[in-house]
């Protein structure tokens, strides 16, 4: 109690200096809280996006370095031969210029089939989605993502209008509902144009398929399905590594790993600044002990024991670090909010990390305060009284 009052007196005597010292801790803690919050938020968002692709999903993509191409026949083969598969959805994506009247936008154009709304749980809002016939006859019809519709048509109704995709005329037959997820690792499904995959292949002059999404029946074990798919391609290409087959859980796990590492990395970098703040505390406390040598001598002469002096200075440094920690938490939360608002990255302030940052700040105060405090406590009263 008494050392608390003494410490506060000491800090008040040098307001500016105490504040500047505290600033090191404030910045450190704020950085930890803000960066970890953004990291946590980003990781949650990515997870949500992957989950929003649809549940019980298996993805097939060609192994990048091997030059193997997926084709529509593979899609049919998966649907026909693998047990538990509801639908296999081919997809090819390319950023193309889409025009309506005078307006021209670069949009992610996706070639797909009539199964997309069901596999990716993304229904049509108005009009209709692509039909089996559209795909079969390579019709030049397009369904717009909600944001694309907004960008291209503004207040106008897109249904029945003619747009140009890579210079070819397409009839707009539908507009999708707003999914509201995407943009970080998964493309933003609201800002896409969906056309029949066959039409897309013709525009792009290819027979390949970019990737295949396989929707697995509810309650079916995904493991055997992925193994079966892998084997189909192993036989076809005579190459066990021709394609990569991921289940959604595998993707989530991988993403979770990466974002987890990223979060810890960000937190550690911020932690280093907290450490620097601690060194600042030690520095200023050493100065303070030297300045107050005579005071320490007087206190010892009138009966202060070592632990009294130790407590006085230690409490002072802990107050600096704890106050700095509290202010830093506040600033860090504000900062992460600002990043979330302006950077389109959501931030999640995790109580656990806030406590870690606060605890770390307290530990910094004790760790860097103990040496100066011990130095003060060990002073010889005679020497200290002689000091000027």
């Amino acid at each position, binding site marked *: 109690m*008494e050392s608390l009052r003494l410490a506060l*007196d000491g800090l008040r*005597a040098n307001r500016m200096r105490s504040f500047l010292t505290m600033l090191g801790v404030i910045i450190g803690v704020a950085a930890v809280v803000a960066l970890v919050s953004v990291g946590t938020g980003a990781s949650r968002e990515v997870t949500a996006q992957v989950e929003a692709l649809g549940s019980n999903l298996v993805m097939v993509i060609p192994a990048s370095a091997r030059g193997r191409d997926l084709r529509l026949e593979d899609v049919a083969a998966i649907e026909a031969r693998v047990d538990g598969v509801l639908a296999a959805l081919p997809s090819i994506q390319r950023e193309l210029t889409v025009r309506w009247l005078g307006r021209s936008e670069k949009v992610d154009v996706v070639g797909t089939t009539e199964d997309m709304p069901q596999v990716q749980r993304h229904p049509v809002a108005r009009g209709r989605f692509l039909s089996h016939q559209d795909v079969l006859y390579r019709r030049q019809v397009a369904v717009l993502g909600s944001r694309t519709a907004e960008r291209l048509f503004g207040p106008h109704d897109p249904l029945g209008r003619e747009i140009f995709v890579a210079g070819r005329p397409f009839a707009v037959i539908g507009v999708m509902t707003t999914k509201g997820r995407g943009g970080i690792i998964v493309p933003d499904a609201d800002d896409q144009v969906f056309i029949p995959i066959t039409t897309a292949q013709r525009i792009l002059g290819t027979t390949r398929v970019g990737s295949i999404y396989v929707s697995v029946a509810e309650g079916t074990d995904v493991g055997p399905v992925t193994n079966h798919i892998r084997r189909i391609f192993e036989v076809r290409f005579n190459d066990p590594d021709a394609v990569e087959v991921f289940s959604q859980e595998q993707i989530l796990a991988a993403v979770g790993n990466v974002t987890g590492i990223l979060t810890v990395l960000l937190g550690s970098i911020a932690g280093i600044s907290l450490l620097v703040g601690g060194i600042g505390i030690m520095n200023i406390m050493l100065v303070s002990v030297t300045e107050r040598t*005579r*005071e320490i*001598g*007087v*206190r*010892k*002469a*009138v*009966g*202060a*024991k*070592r632990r*009294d002096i130790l407590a006085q200075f230690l409490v002072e440094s802990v107050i600096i670090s704890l106050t700095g920690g509290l202010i830093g938490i506040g600033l860090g939360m504000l900062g992460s909010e600002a990043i979330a608002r302006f950077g389109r990255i959501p931030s999640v302030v995790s109580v656990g990390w806030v406590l870690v940052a606060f605890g770390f700040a307290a530990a910094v105060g004790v760790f860097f305060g103990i040496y100066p405090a011990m130095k003060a406590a060990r002073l010889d*009263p*005679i020497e200290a*009284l002689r000091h000027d």
Partner: protein
Amino acid sequence: MARGPSSPSAPLPRGSHRGTPLIELQRVTKVYGEGRLSVAALQEADLRVWEGELVSIMGPSGSGKSTLMNILGCLDRPTRGVYLLEGRDVSALTDNELAEIRNRKVGFVFQTFNLLPRATAAENVELPLIYRGVPRAVRRRMAREALEIVNMGHRLTHRPAQLSGGEQQRVAIARALAGDPRLILADEPTGNLDSRTGEEIMGLFQRVNEELGVTVVLVTHDPRRARQTRRIIRMLDGRLVGDDPVPDEEFVRAARGGPDGKAGEPAG
């Protein structure tokens, strides 16, 4: 304030030294450094001071006065010899035990006052009581009483910078008195004061000694100040070379401050 076993109105008659001395040094030696570089600042000092005495120590610089005071004040331990304070051997106590004794038995007054600049007069006086664990309210009252003894009751909330040198030394004496000590040790308490203010401070020591019965040992260079005490100890080269009572006819009663203890001039 009742002070110690000796009643304030009837201090021990001088010259009738009976019972256990307050201070007893037996062949106390203090050596600084080691081997050939060592210096004996105090050599084989034997000294007895009884309760209620008013003693001055004189001697040139380097004669060991400060070393003697440090040992008497339990700030330092003898290298050899025995120091009995109130009959208790304190020569080999730990730092914490010595701190405890300084806190309860000894009050220090310094040449440069050594008040804490940021603390008020009352807070400065409270300092020893803080380390004794006296509750805040009690501390306040004891500090006020001590400041009233030195006629500084009207300056409770002043900070040292707002006080004259004489006033600061009064606050310092109040701090020494606040803990109700048996012994006050003053190292050249008038050294930084002009002669009129110094006279007042000496008067204060005489009054504290006579009225409260507190034993006072002070260091001075000034023979006039020494004759304002009852006994003069002389030191030279770390040895006690003289120890004489001041005869009543030579004893000088210091001029008291004004009736209300008006402060003297600021220190020059």
